[in-house]
């Protein structure tokens, strides 16, 4: 199953042309509080395509209390569009009642892990469905971390029964920024735990990479995606995100469809090499 991140600039093309695509992913917060055109369009698109909801503001890793007003609206939106699942990021976005609207990294240690696991259980219970957690890209690592990110991502699956949204581009970005082997990350993800993959472009500044979701997916990420499919299977749905300098729908669609024929890992990169 191959999908595209739903963006307002493409609404008209999608409803007019009904392109061949397996599903759309909508950013939850863009539709929770709008009763205007975006909501109307989402409802129309949900009549024709499966929808998954992807959030950026659950703040699951924060020490602030969970926002049940937000969760109520999320649950209602999910029911309205018959979302196949709800995902958000394994991160925090704000503290002390303030929101940075950024996906901020967590210290990877037992304290954080248990804090997050308890909140994932509370959210899943409230939503009546297992939460799907995505690995966020990061630009900084904490001195208080005591385990690698891949372990920190995999452990909540055991502790809470949640599923994962494995962002292959984010694995690549974080591997570049923190100097680890991205394949080691993929190897640590339990097979069967992944509901969805993400692919996207990014911006390389030389000293570090920022996850900008701009431009096409680079070859190295396609190669890592092929490796991921080999290790974790192609049952999870794959989604292309394109959020900056968004081109016409046909270009985004063509980029997404490359996932249906993702190249096999080159011999030098293959796990069998």
């Amino acid at each position, binding site marked *: 199953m191959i999908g595209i991140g739903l963006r307002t600039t493409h609404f008209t093309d999608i409803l007019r042309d009904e392109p061949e695509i397996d599903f759309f992913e909508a950013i939850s*917060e863009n539709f*929770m*509080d*709008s*009763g*205007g*055109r975006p909501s*109307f369009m989402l409802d129309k698109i949900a009549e024709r395509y499966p929808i998954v909801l992807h959030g950026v*503001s*659950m*703040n699951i890793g*924060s*020490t602030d209390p969970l*926002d049940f007003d*937000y969760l109520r609206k999320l649950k209602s939106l999910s029911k309205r569009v018959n979302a196949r699942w709800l995902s958000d990021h394994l991160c*925090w976005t*704000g*503290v*002390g*009642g*303030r*929101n*940075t*609207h*950024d996906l*901020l990294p*967590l*210290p990877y240690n037992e*304290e*954080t892990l248990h*804090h997050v696991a308890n909140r994932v259980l509370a959210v899943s219970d409230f939503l009546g469905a297992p939460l799907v957690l995505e690995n966020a890209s990061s*630009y*900084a*690592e*904490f*001195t*208080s971390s005591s385990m690698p990110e891949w372990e920190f991502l995999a452990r909540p699956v055991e502790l809470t029964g949640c599923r994962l949204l494995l962002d292959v581009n984010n694995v690549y970005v974080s591997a570049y*920024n*923190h*100097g680890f082997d991205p394949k080691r990350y993929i190897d640590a993800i339990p097979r069967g735990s992944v509901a969805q993959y993400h692919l996207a472009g990014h911006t390389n500044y*030389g*000293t*570090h990479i*920022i996850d900008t979701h701009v431009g096409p997916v680079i070859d190295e990420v396609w190669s890592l995606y092929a490796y991921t499919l080999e290790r974790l299977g192609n049952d999870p749905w794959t989604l292309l995100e394109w959020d900056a300098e968004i081109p016409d729908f046909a270009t985004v669609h063509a980029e997404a469809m490359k996932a249906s024929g993702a190249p096999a890992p080159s011999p030098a990169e293959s796990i069998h090499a």
Partner: protein
Amino acid sequence: MLDRTQRWMYSVIADPSGPAIAAREAERHILPSRTLSAADRVLIYTGMYVSRFAEALAADYPALAHYLGEEQFNDLVARYIEKHPSTSYTLNRLGDALPEFLTGFERDLARLELAMTLVFDEEETPVADLTQLPADRAESMRLVPIRACRVLSLNYNSNECFQAFRDEAPMRPRRTKNYLLVHRKDYSVHRTRLTKKAHDFLRELGAGKTLGDAIVSVKPSQHELFEWFRDWSAAGLFQSFGE
């Protein structure tokens, strides 16, 4: 420990003294990479903080952002979010206090753009058929406007300037009292000039006055009433009526 770490990182990101805090304390919290120091790494997040809000506010206030230019608009956003940091899961309402943060033409233009954003996002409401208004009891009726509707009293030619922005023409602000209806129909936002009387009449109805009381208060002519209701009925401006 986690709470302390998050509050520290928030202060580095959002506090104007963030870079100084990072320079002093980053190594205690953040590991360096092979290419960046601990402070440089955490300051990546600081660098994106204002620009993220500037991008969000420029989407809601495109004409104001254009009028001020990038540097001045970003400076405005930095000052604004220091006073009005986001406290919500959504960025949609972040800019609601921006007009009150401004003066003169900029405030007037921001009020217009805020009204347009609010109207764009409002919940859809049904539209009443005004031909069903009972003629014998019309004066005792209260007409309820649709939610996606705002009535503005402006002090500058902000609507003209907004149109100039849309048309990629120069904005030429000048002081002039004028009145505007901003409403949504078929999911499109419309801006319509109003006379002062029409503005006052809609204000009275919006405040819950009966048609009769609004007529007594504003004193429109029969011709004005006919034209208003013809236009407002076509615009689908009322969601219901009743005594």
